[in-house]
């Protein structure tokens, strides 16, 4: 899915029929990997991610246990057939960077100091990629950590904003991502309205950039509700 000459917004509607600030269909499910301590499945449109959490558990090998804080490890991975051209197994530079920024989006939100000598391993498997994979992963991570019973100060919501054909939009799909003027994945603590991940690529005036940040933060509440609902559903069942 490369660049296209097509107009991306016509009559106020995006190519898939959404309004600029509309999100795609969202599906969230908890407890999908029986072996994991916590797990989830999150889908935004065709972008689908499975998250699994193992831990907290004692660190191994032992010499790692000198650390006076718990350790969060994050692996963001795209499976080979999740994208148009097969992705080779093994972490790419892009995946290594995304694993790091996702770790940063959660590290301050967990009480890792309370778990010295233990590790929490968070695995994010992108099953299908149609834009906004890292923010979809963040939602999956938030649910899987909650499902595993890892204490968090707040949920973490992921959502991307962008600018396309001069219009600010939310939740970019793959085609939009490739044709946008700007693309901005964010992670938001929905209660405190604080930001733990923010990346931006593109060209924006400071004012529209600030507007876009505001749009993303405002929309995070609705996603937070869906996370809470997915968790409730599991524990009712």
């Amino acid at each position, binding site marked *: 899915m490369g660049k296209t000459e097509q107009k991306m917004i016509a009559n106020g509607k995006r190519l898939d029929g959404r309004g600029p600030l509309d999100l795609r269909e969202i599906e969230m499910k908890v407890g999908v*990997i*029986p*072996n*994991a301590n916590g*797990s989830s499945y999150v889908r935004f449109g*065709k972008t*689908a991610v*499975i*998250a*699994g959490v*193992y831990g907290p*558990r004692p660190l191994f090998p032992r010499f790692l246990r000198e650390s006076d804080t718990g350790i969060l490890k994050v*692996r963001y*991975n795209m*499976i*080979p*057939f*999740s*994208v*148009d*051209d*097969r992705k080779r*197994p*093994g972490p790419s530079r892009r995946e290594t960077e995304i694993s790091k920024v996702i770790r940063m989006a959660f590290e301050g939100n967990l009480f890792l100091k309370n778990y010295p000598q233990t590790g929490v*391993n968070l*695995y994010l*498997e992108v*099953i*299908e*990629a*149609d834009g906004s994979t890292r923010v979809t992963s963040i939602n999956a991570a938030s649910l899987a950590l909650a499902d595993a019973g890892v204490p968090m100060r707040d949920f973490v919501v992921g959502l991307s904003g962008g600018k396309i054909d001069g219009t600010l939009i939310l939740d970019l799909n793959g085609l939009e991502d490739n044709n946008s003027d700007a693309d901005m994945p964010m992670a938001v603590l929905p209660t405190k309205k604080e930001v733990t991940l923010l990346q931006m690529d593109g060209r924006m005036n400071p004012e529209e950039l600030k507007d876009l940040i505001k749009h993303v933060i405002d929309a995070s509440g609705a996603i937070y509700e869906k996370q809470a609902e997915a968790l409730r559903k599991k524990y009712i069942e």
Partner: protein
Amino acid sequence: MRKNYILDLLKNDERLDGRKLDEYREIEIEVNPVSKAEGSARVRIGKTDVIIGTKMDFGTPFPDTPNEGTIKSEAEFMPIASEDFESGPPGEDAIELARVVDRAIRESQCLDLKSLCITPGEKVWSISLDTIILNHDGNLIDAATIGAMVALLNSKIPELEDDKIVRDKHSGKLPVSSKAVNVTVCKFEDKFILDPTREEEEVFDTKMCIGVRDDGKVVSIQKMGPGSLKDSEIYDMIDIAIKKSKNLFKLVGKDGKKDI
């Protein structure tokens, strides 16, 4: 202790989850769950959960088969699937799984590789068959082979425009003329079981993974585990596998729909 309990049950031909010795857990097949793949399948056998996909790209043919496309099979035992799996390049178990799946597919000659030639000796379609383990609860090879078969049966060939691959159009389906499955038969003393859970695999540690084609021919065998087998036991295991394969072939219908 758990091991002893499994063995005690076995004396009465019983299993932990109440199954008969030759009974599979429920099998659930999802066809083309990943639309970016040329074809894909998700297969659950009990709590075992695997996802298999095909991708087609340009490749060069092997020198001794200049008119044939190529297929390669890889597997990842991702750490999400089990606390025993680690990140990193595939270990010997993942490599063995990928190769045993590959062998059943390849030796069954189910795929018309000649039809995948673009320019003889230079450019052919190269199929990548990737197996991803999402949750490991035993019997991975049987699950992966079913998934590979369903993914192949449901793969579409991307269109070529000006020598470029256009992935959202298709020039037809992958030509698959027969089907193959692997049936893994596990042995402990004089007992054979099918579809072991992960717990059972630790007890029944000698097994034969037998690839069968839908005409009843055996296309591949892999003896696994440290034990030894008498000839008569091997013969029994082959017969068990051929018999059970018929049930599995019903699941792997040409349209790939789950009908169990």
